[in-house]
């Protein structure tokens, strides 16, 4: 069973990624006295000028990956801040135009909780349902748009299921209705192509640490043509064209720039390699009984696979899989005992949502890692099913949906 070089095997790249060594090297050159440590806002000496050049270069790399103008990139502390800045920024700036926002039930908490805050401030928010595949029905979205709708916020790739939303179509619709469109692209940048010359996205959130950059840095794309205005949420020295004040963290920014440069260079080859690995993983499970794939694989990021192993509880499976690092759609590990709201929104029953595992593969995943995972998962699922009264009932032909359970 020890055919993998590294145990535990890391298969949680959708949670975070290690920094690429090329990224780490660039960052280390921006910290010490003999490095590029200056404040890019210092106009009076070479230390500041050099730091400013480094930031400019990084801004160019980020813009290049998404085919945008470098002047449209605003540095933030991460995708959560970008989501907050975009949504609150638009809501506050355009509040005279209207107070209605549209988002979706499967969004990340950074979007949902920001919308909840705006509801407390008197805004009205529509939370769209998704189809069982994970996609938004364009007709449902169109019907939700009102005269006072100012913003649509829909993510590009879902963090739990990996489903890619058709943001080009959403952008066309939003533009035709005169509604601003924000998109959280934390899970898609560097994994699927993003062309903001073509896609009518007005605001887009990015994170560095999902694509082999450091944690603590992200960016918000703010379109210039047509010009989108946002109200700053962080006030101070007027950095980033007044949209986000605070001394620029040069080492973080340089790291994000390098991560985005490498991502652009390797996107095509890496996508193909990850897709092959995911297919290998899925093939390894395909003859197992009672497994369900969460999210439609036809429009999907290559490196992610979310599967429910019916009749096995997710947290105990994760415990059994301690030699691989994966995550569960069951939130039993946190204080709440609720199953994933994303899988629930896809119409999954609670028990299947409780039984789900998200495998996310990445740049350093090998075939040996995948083979090791397949063998381990099969062995542990079998063991836990032997222990499961539900599996026993299923095998005895009992229809579990007709059993009257004593909920607790």
């Amino acid at each position: 069973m020890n055919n993998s070089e590294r145990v535990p095997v890391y298969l949680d790249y959708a949670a975070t990624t290690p920094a690429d060594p090329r990224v780490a090297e660039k960052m280390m050159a921006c910290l010490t006295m003999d490095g590029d440590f200056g404040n890019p806002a210092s106009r009076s000496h070479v230390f500041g000028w050099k730091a400013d050049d480094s930031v400019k270069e990084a801004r160019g790399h980020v813009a290049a990956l998404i085919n945008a103008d470098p002047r449209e990139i605003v540095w933030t502390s991460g995708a959560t801040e970008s989501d907050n800045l975009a949504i609150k920024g638009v809501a506050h700036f355009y509040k005279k135009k209207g107070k209605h926002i549209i988002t979706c039930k499967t969004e990340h908490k950074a979007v949902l909780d920001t919308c909840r805050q705006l509801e407390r401030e008197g805004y009205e928010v529509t939370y769209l349902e998704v189809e069982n595949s994970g996609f938004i029905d364009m007709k449902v979205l169109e019907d939700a748009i009102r005269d006072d709708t100012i913003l649509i916020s829909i993510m590009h790739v879902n963090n739990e299921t990996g489903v890619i939303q058709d943001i080009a179509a959403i952008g066309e619709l939003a533009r035709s209705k005169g509604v601003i469109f924000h998109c959280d692209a934390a899970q898609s940048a560097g994994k699927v192509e993003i062309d903001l010359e073509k896609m009518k996205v007005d605001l887009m959130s990015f994170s560095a640490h999902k694509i082999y950059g450091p944690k603590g840095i992200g960016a918000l794309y703010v379109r210039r043509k047509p010009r989108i205005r946002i109200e700053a949420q962080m006030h101070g020295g007027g950095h980033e064209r007044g949209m986000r004040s605070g001394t620029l963290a040069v080492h973080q920014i340089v790291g994000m720039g390098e991560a985005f440069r490498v991502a652009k260079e390797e996107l095509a080859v890496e996508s193909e390699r990850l897709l092959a690995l995911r297919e290998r993983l899925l093939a390894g499970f395909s003859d197992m009984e009672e497994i369900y794939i969460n999210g439609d694989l036809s429009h999907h990021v290559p490196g992610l696979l979310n599967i429910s192993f019916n009749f096995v509880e997710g947290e105990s499976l994760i415990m059994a899989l301690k030699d691989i690092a994966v995550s569960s759609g069951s939130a039993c590990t946190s204080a709440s005992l609720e199953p994933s709201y994303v899988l629930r929104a896809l119409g999954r029953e609670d028990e299947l949502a409780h039984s789900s595992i998200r495998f996310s593969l990445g740049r350093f995943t090998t075939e040996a890692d995948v083979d090791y995972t397949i063998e381990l998962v099969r062995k542990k699922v079998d063991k836990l099913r032997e222990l499961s009264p539900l599996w026993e009932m299923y095998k005895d032909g009992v229809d579990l949906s007709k059993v009257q359970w004593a909920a607790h």
Partner: protein
Amino acid sequence: MAYSDKVMDHYENPRNVGSFDKDDNAVGTGMVGAPACGDVMKLQIKVSDEGVIEDAKFKTYGCGSAIASSSLLTEWVKGKTLQQASEIKNTELAEELALPPVKIHCSVLAEDAIKAAIEDYNSKGATAVDAPEKVADAS
């Protein structure tokens, strides 16, 4: 989440996994919990004519703490009278396994399971062979 050594031990080497024939009059079956909540425990006891629990088996769908709670419970009830077994408290299980506060409900479920099993056994003695199951009757 960090599990105690005792939880890990019961989880990795669960004791008394299996099933008895639920229609056997000497067997009491307790099935508690619900799949939607993420835990289902089935606990079965085999009772001697003298009212002593000779053997116990379990199957559990749930987290590691739920599996450990039911596994430990099967160890504890063996050799006890029905009366003694019915007096086992969830707090004793939780303490033995050092369950964190968010996992206390697993020990509560185990206590419910032994009570349900005893009730099922008693109902068989009181009525005919085909006494209805209390909690999870497939209808």
